[in-house]
């Protein structure tokens, strides 16, 4: 029954470092959970996506000292991080990031954190105005990509395990019953109900090619005129992974660190090269890079769309640039 969820979370916080959605002003944020009452599962979107758990905004990756150089950070703690109540779109973002950081060259910093993360994902029954995960194949429910999946069946939750870690987690649920065909039937109905509630949709058929054929579409001139190049879309995007790498050092250069920081393709300096050259000096070209990466280039780079349809960029944009409108315009809309 639903009340048992709280005692389950109570047991989880003893074993894991648990993070979950908590109110923050008028919004929500994934924060440390020490007691089950702190969690608000009935949340909309968190301000920042979950990428903050895979790499902080700024991090020293190397340390130079006494003529030597060694990787940072040192190994982390043994306690696993459990993200409780993750939405499907956010859970899907991990598959994009995994491809970037563990495919050809494995970034240990990312891999260690990723292996240390356990997810309890919650299917969405009430998509928001800006949500379009149903178009991107990343929600409102998932077939894979979770340790545990919860589906709200009004008077109870359907709990499904998606990994060996999930099997362990679900074993400690108090008074759990084995789900039967009726429960799965209800899950199916709940997904169908949720699907009807989406207000935004993206037609992804041939979208990657159509995007590249419309690089000179008149909308880019319009967007260039209104865009502030503030970079909020990139900051809140769950799959935006670009970083800058720079060195810091003491005045003597005897010791120092190499620091990796979140970076942002819509900022002017991003595409600068030697001698002041810049291949994306134009503001429209920069926002087009963000849109193109999300709606087109990901297919060639990772075999799937980079965009997971969370709608955060739409919500964050101070001038109402809407990625779903861009997707419809390249189709001639």
């Amino acid at each position: 029954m639903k009340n048992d969820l709280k005692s389950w979370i109570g047991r989880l916080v003893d074993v894991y470092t648990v993070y979950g959605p908590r109110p923050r002003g008028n919004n929500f944020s994934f924060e440390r959970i020490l007691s089950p009452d702190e969690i608000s599962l009935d949340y909309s979107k968190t301000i920042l996506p979950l990428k903050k758990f895979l790499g902080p905004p700024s991090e020293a990756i190397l340390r130079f000292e006494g003529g030597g150089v060694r990787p940072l950070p040192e190994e982390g703690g043994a306690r696993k991080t459990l993200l409780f109540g993750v939405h499907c779109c956010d859970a899907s973002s991990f598959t994009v990031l995994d491809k970037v950081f563990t495919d050809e060259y494995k970034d240990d910093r990312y891999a260690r954190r990723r292996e240390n993360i356990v997810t309890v994902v919650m299917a969405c029954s009430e998509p928001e105005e800006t949500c379009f995960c149903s178009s991107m194949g990343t929600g409102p429910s998932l077939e894979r990509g979770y340790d545990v999946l919860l589906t709200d069946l009004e008077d109870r939750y359907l709990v499904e395990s998606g990994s060996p870690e999930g099997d362990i987690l679900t074993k400690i649920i108090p008074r759990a019953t084995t789900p039967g065909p009726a429960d799965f039937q209800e899950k199916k109905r709940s997904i169908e109900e949720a699907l009807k509630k989406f207000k935004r949709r993206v037609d992804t058929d041939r979208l990657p090619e159509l995007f590249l054929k419309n690089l000179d579409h008149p909308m880019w001139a319009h967007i260039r005129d209104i865009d502030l190049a503030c970079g909020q879309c990139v900051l809140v995007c769950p799959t935006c992974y670009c970083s800058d790498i720079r060195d810091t050092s003491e005045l003597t250069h005897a010791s120092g660190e190499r620091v990796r920081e979140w970076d942002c393709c819509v900022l002017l300096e991003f595409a600068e090269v030697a001698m002041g050259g810049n291949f994306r000096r134009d503001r429209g070209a920069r926002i087009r890079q963000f849109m193109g990466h999300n709606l087109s280039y990901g297919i060639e780079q990772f075999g799937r769309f980079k965009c997971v349809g969370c709608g955060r960029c739409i919500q964050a944009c101070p001038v109402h640039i809407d990625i779903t409108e861009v997707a419809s315009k390249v189709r001639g809309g």
Partner: protein
Amino acid sequence: MKDPYLPEKASIEKIRSETVDTKTYTVRLLDERKRTEFSVEPGQFIMVSLFGIGEAPFSLSSSPNSDGAFDTTIRAVGNITSALDRLQEGAIIGVRGPYGRGWPVESARGKDVLIIAGGIGLPPLRPVITKIAEERSEYGRLEILYGARTPDQMIFPDEYDDWMKIKETRLELTVDSAPPGTGWQHNVGVVTTLFDKMKTTPENSLVMTCGPEIMMRFVVRGLLAKKFAPDQICVSLERRMKCGIAQCGHCQIGPKYVCKDGPVFKLSEIQGLPDLAL
């Protein structure tokens, strides 16, 4: 597995001045095993670290010699390159790589090779010239068109005589301007003004070009006008890679990563992509 961001230590064995602001650094990895394993294709690049100052990508201007040492030719224009410029022989730097896809020297076998370079775009093509010289019978005719702003900006001037001695090889030089007193006896004009003298034809040939993107734009136009096909024109692109391993996102051109899919591309692979001056 080794951290891909951790540079290998290397020493600068030799420094040779090329022009007033450009030097060729001969670099050798300190670790013997790493040095033996280090193999590189012409046109690939490395990430060079000056600890505490920063890291930047540079193409190699030679393959490793029998001693495992290789050249990189660098113009001092920014923070890192200016700090490099102040180093003495024996200095220790960091090296990662090599990375990326170089010139198609294998598929060029049996074909005529046309090299068109501008300014600091010549160094990444030098290993191609060396390879063709070493395996001369494997390749068709070699033609090199090289342009720089002024005569004193030309890189590797001591090597031109040797290049011209390679069998079936032509070398044409040009400068944008030749100030009085420089004794310049070659062409004056941008590199495309050498196209009238060009002997290479589209038939069974491959073009490799590197230089400022605006130069390559006119080179590509000129070549297409001469009926060279987009899949026989190879360009080496410059973008500011911060990681070299397709993780920092800085060098993307549409779906392509210059660090991983390039830096050498066939024109046909990048035609129609955004944010290219080509």
